[in-house]
């Protein structure tokens, strides 16, 4: 069982929801990323999704697009990002790290090489936003051989056939996109999410995390009623945007922001 699978199984056994924060690696500059990752753990992160900056993040909203632009302008690239994970792993061997990004930088490096280097750096899983399950036959074995979990997205538009296909290839968890839209969108329809998650659970026993539109304790608690985990991304990244010029204040801010969400989720448990 991988570190990611074990972490999520343990949480389930304890009746707790997984809290999965997302930040873009290298934002506002690579020097801050490891500190921010530790701050997320201090705030109660169970899994960290670390964004791999890409020049054309077409599934993301303006908040994360700008984060990508800041990170790239500060010299972040794939090699640098893997170094940052390696550095994080020196003092944290327990919190799984999932890299979330787009295919081109990975394919440019070579998928097999990337998978091995990521594993060696201490990465646990990958979520490639623009890699649909239909295009994975060549890729999935390479990630599996490297021992990396492949996390896939499901959406309100996903048909039964697609849910089955994704459940057959995905591992670790499935990431349900709560709404039709890009990251950072405002509206969250909890009843709709509950309905779709129930449908998805007919076809898979994988833990279901929900993201897009979760920005505070209240929205996290609402989604936590029906999901195994919640992903908080743009709400954290917009803090980084606001304080990019004074990054020294960010660790305490992110710990506090995530801590409030952690508390709300833990009150759901038991």
């Amino acid at each position, binding site marked *: 069982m991988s570190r990611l699978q074990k972490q999520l199984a343990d949480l389930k056994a304890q009746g707790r929801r997984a809290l999965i924060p997302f930040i873009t690696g290298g934002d506002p500059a690579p020097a801050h990323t490891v500190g921010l990752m530790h701050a997320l753990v201090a705030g109660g992160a169970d899994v960290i999704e670390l964004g791999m900056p*890409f*020049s*054309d*993040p*077409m*599934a993301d*909203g*303006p908040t994360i*697009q*700008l984060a990508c*632009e800041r990170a*790239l302008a500060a010299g972040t*690239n*794939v*090699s640098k990002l893997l170094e940052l994970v390696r550095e994080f792993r020196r003092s944290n061997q327990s919190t799984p790290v999932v890299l979330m990004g*787009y*295919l*081109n*930088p*990975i*394919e*440019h*490096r070579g998928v097999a090489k990337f998978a091995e280097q990521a594993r060696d750096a201490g990465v646990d899983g990958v979520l490639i*936003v*623009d*890699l*649909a399950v*239909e*295009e994975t036959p060549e890729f999935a074995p390479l990630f599996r051989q490297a021992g990396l979990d492949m996390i*896939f*997205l*499901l*959406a*309100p*538009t*996903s*048909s039964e056939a*697609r849910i089955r296909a*994704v459940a057959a290839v995905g591992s670790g968890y499935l990431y349900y*996109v709560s709404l*039709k*839209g*890009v990251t950072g*969108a405002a509206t969250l329809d909890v009843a709709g999410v509950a309905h779709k998650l129930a449908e998805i659970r007919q076809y898979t026993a994988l833990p279901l995390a929900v993201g897009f539109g979760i920005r505070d304790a209240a929205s996290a608690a609402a989604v936590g009623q029906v999901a195994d985990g919640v992903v908080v991304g743009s709400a954290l990244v917009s803090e980084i945007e606001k304080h990019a010029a004074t990054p020294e204040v960010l660790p305490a801010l992110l710990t506090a922001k995530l801590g409030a969400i952690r508390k709300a989720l833990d009150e759901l448990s038991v």
Partner: protein
Amino acid sequence: MVYDYAQFPDARGHFGAYGGRFVAETLMEPLRQLEEAYARLKDDPAFRAELDRDYAHYVGRPSPLYHCERLTRAWGGAQVWLKREDLNHTGAHKINNTIGQALLAKHLGKTRIIAETGAGQHGVASATIAARLGLKCVVYMGVDDVERQSPNVYRMKLLGAEVVPVTSGTRTLKDALNEALRDWVTNVDDTFYVIGTVAGPHPYPMLVRDFNSIVGRELIGQSREQIGRLPDALVACVGGGSNAIGMFHPLLQYPEVAMYGVEAGGDGIETGRHAAPLSAGQPGVLHGNRTYVMADDDGQIIGTHSISAGLDYPGVGPEHAWLKDIGRVHYVSATDAETMEAFYELTRREGIIPALESSHAVAYAKKLAPTLGSDRHIVINLSGRGDKDIFTIAKREGISLT
């Protein structure tokens, strides 16, 4: 190797190693529905009849095949012909595709269409057909392009479209495409995304090609009638590559017809300031398909440079990527300077003001013609007219028109 070009893309939308469907999950089902609807409608007699009627009476098809006698004499070689897509309603080949896609939108019950545009030709063609069919239309356009193509921006607004300037990334066509995809993923229930070129996720490269193939189909009949046989060479500019594929595709099966796709060489391929992924890029994944892209050492997409907004794109249609690899089409480039020279030459020798995009094809034909005998025939796809570019040209000449 002999290919049956009609069998591509395959069922998964692949042209060899290229094409496919690389988008976020939310769009996978809408794309499948579009593929299904297109498969059902493309051979439906009523749909075809509606399309053919629009091509004839709204676009003004067939577009003429015109023999450039003075240009032929000046270049001293092959006979030079123009396929006059510049004479279409709205002034470019783009309307061939937007009419087809808007009809699909109508049949799918969508009430709103969105489009991305670079030079503005596709935006104008989308706004035009939206006005005619009573659809709401939103066009995404990079702010740099809004500035250099201001006449087209105004035309779109006159036609009732909303033009959204895009300030992210490099502020050109690729960023407009990102923004249109974001809009689509958010409004997928009532919105049809009218992609302007043979790129994007399957089935777009196929259906945009099919709608533009009217150009090549007409050319086969016209050249048999006017030349007495098929031409020896076809030349077309390639940004995303829709005008080129439209002319090439119906003739791919005739090995005696040589084909040249002309990319934007900008300041010259060797300077790195160009928009020529087939000439100087490598395979990658961008905007939903695998194709040749311009990227840096880390796989980040890099900014492009071209005098023509319509070719200023770091990717290219996946079918072109495949046609390059199998060697069926030759991909070459023309620099900004060569393009300007060709622009003036066609304007003054034939009284036809070409779009800067199409002027790239003219520029390459000028190199090709003298290498061939006068019994050989070259057809250039004159994909658009140059009225939209007169401000850019005037600015280069140091003249103010306002």
